[in-house]
């Protein structure tokens, strides 16, 4: 079943800049839905550097990536934005006019469709995708012999499985798939793992009892007539090679960011960035805005604080699309009772 949602604004990307845009739009009575490919809000801050300190957020001498996200989430709480996580926007279709824009937005995972009056792209470096190891011809085996995620464990029952990597995903799936796989092999480039210690211990004991194999090295070739995989050649640090038989290989090399389908939405792109004006942060398509790391303009700085500013200005123009007949009064949260009511703090 596909859902259809009508709303004022769809924000693509729930990173810090997308989150703060909810606040600026909310003050102007504009309702939003946020879509993000990750299972949680926070974008790079939460995914790449949750524990890293950030020192250049105004008013915070130091805040961690996750700390900033947590604060933004509580700051936008009064506006009750709806999050659509684990979803990627696949298509954007313009069904309005330049004066009264209207968009139909469709996501890939659940096929949810949205109709909205403005679209704000706050997608940072793009959507997070699994890193693909640069192994020759790997694409030819994807979906048959190469998988970057486990959707259904049953697919791997009685298969000879090779897992590659040394992080939590690699180790978790090693211990989870070992009982059902015909034979499980873990391959990592060095004998050190950055996964939960008890999972590493469990893997080590499975190796010690002979119930799985651990090899050190890296995949250099895939073997078998594509799309059927039947083994890999592994290269060790000293340059020597050996072969391992397998039906499937699961590389867990973390995530990277890709611009993805944005390139197909009729927007001008400049080196994978979206050019915008610096008054409204609107793209070449009226009603579609781009804020944060994904946009570009003369003097652009990829700073979180720039993205906050961009969201505030974009919201002013969005207001004109959402409420074409309303005059926008500029107000401060310190003194405006109406803004304080929206924030739930009016005396």
């Amino acid at each position, binding site marked *: 079943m596909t859902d259809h949602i009508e709303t004022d604004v769809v924000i693509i990307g729930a990173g810090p800049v997308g989150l703060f845009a909810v606040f600026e739009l909310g003050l102007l009575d504009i309702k939003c839905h946020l879509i993000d490919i990750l299972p949680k809000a926070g974008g790079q801050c939460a995914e790449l550097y949750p524990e*890293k300190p950030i020192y250049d957020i105004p008013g915070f001498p130091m805040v961690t990536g996750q700390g900033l996200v947590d604060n933004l989430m509580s700051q936008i709480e009064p506006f009750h934005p709806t999050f659509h996580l684990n979803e990627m926007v696949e298509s954007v279709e313009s069904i309005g006019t330049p004066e009264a824009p209207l968009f139909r937005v469709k996501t890939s995972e659940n096929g949810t469709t949205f109709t909205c009056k403005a679209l704000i792209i706050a997608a940072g470096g793009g959507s997070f995708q699994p890193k693909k190891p640069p192994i020759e011809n790997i694409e030819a085996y994807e979906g048959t012999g190469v998988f970057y995620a486990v959707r259904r464990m049953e697919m791997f029952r009685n298969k000879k499985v090779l897992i590659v990597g040394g992080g939590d995903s690699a180790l978790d799936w090693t211990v989870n798939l070992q009982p059902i796989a015909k034979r499980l092999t873990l391959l990592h480039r060095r004998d050190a793992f950055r996964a939960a210690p008890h999972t590493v211990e469990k893997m080590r004991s499975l190796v010690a009892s002979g119930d799985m194999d651990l090899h050190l090295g890296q995949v250099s070739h895939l073997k078998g007539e594509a799309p059927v995989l039947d083994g890999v050649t592994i290269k060790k640090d000293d340059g020597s090679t050996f072969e391992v038989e397998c039906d499937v290989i699961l590389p867990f090399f973390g995530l990277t960011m890709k611009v993805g389908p944005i390139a197909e939405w009729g927007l001008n792109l400049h080196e994978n960035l979206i050019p915008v004006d610096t008054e409204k942060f609107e793209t070449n398509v009226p009603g579609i805005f781009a804020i944060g790391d994904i946009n570009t303009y003369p003097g652009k700085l990829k700073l979180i604080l720039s993205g906050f500013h961009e969201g505030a200005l974009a919201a002013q123009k969005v207001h004109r699309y959402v409420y074409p007949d309303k005059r926008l009064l500029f107000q401060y949260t310190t003194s405006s009772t109406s803004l304080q009511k929206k924030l739930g703090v009016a005396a």
Partner: protein
Amino acid sequence: MGVIHVIDRAGERHTLEALEGWRVMEIIRDWGLPIEGLCGGACECATCHVFVSEEWLDKLHPATDEEEDQLDTVMTRPNSRLSCQILWNPDLDGLEVTLAPAVG
């Protein structure tokens, strides 16, 4: 002042002026060569992966655990480093690195 030599993915060698205190990733990016550096130098993405010419390897600070963890997420060679973790100083005048294949 000094230089670094960077071999791009097409095999072309570029000589770039280097500045003390800049990360090698930043020097390469500032000169407009195609290095991603997605996380901005936080040692969190491995998209600034380079191969360091053998003769320079032992002149660099060894990789930290954090850098090794990130190197786990790409296909490495024994001379793999993350260029965001190499701070340039005049002792590295003439440093030669090759851009690793782009992350797919």
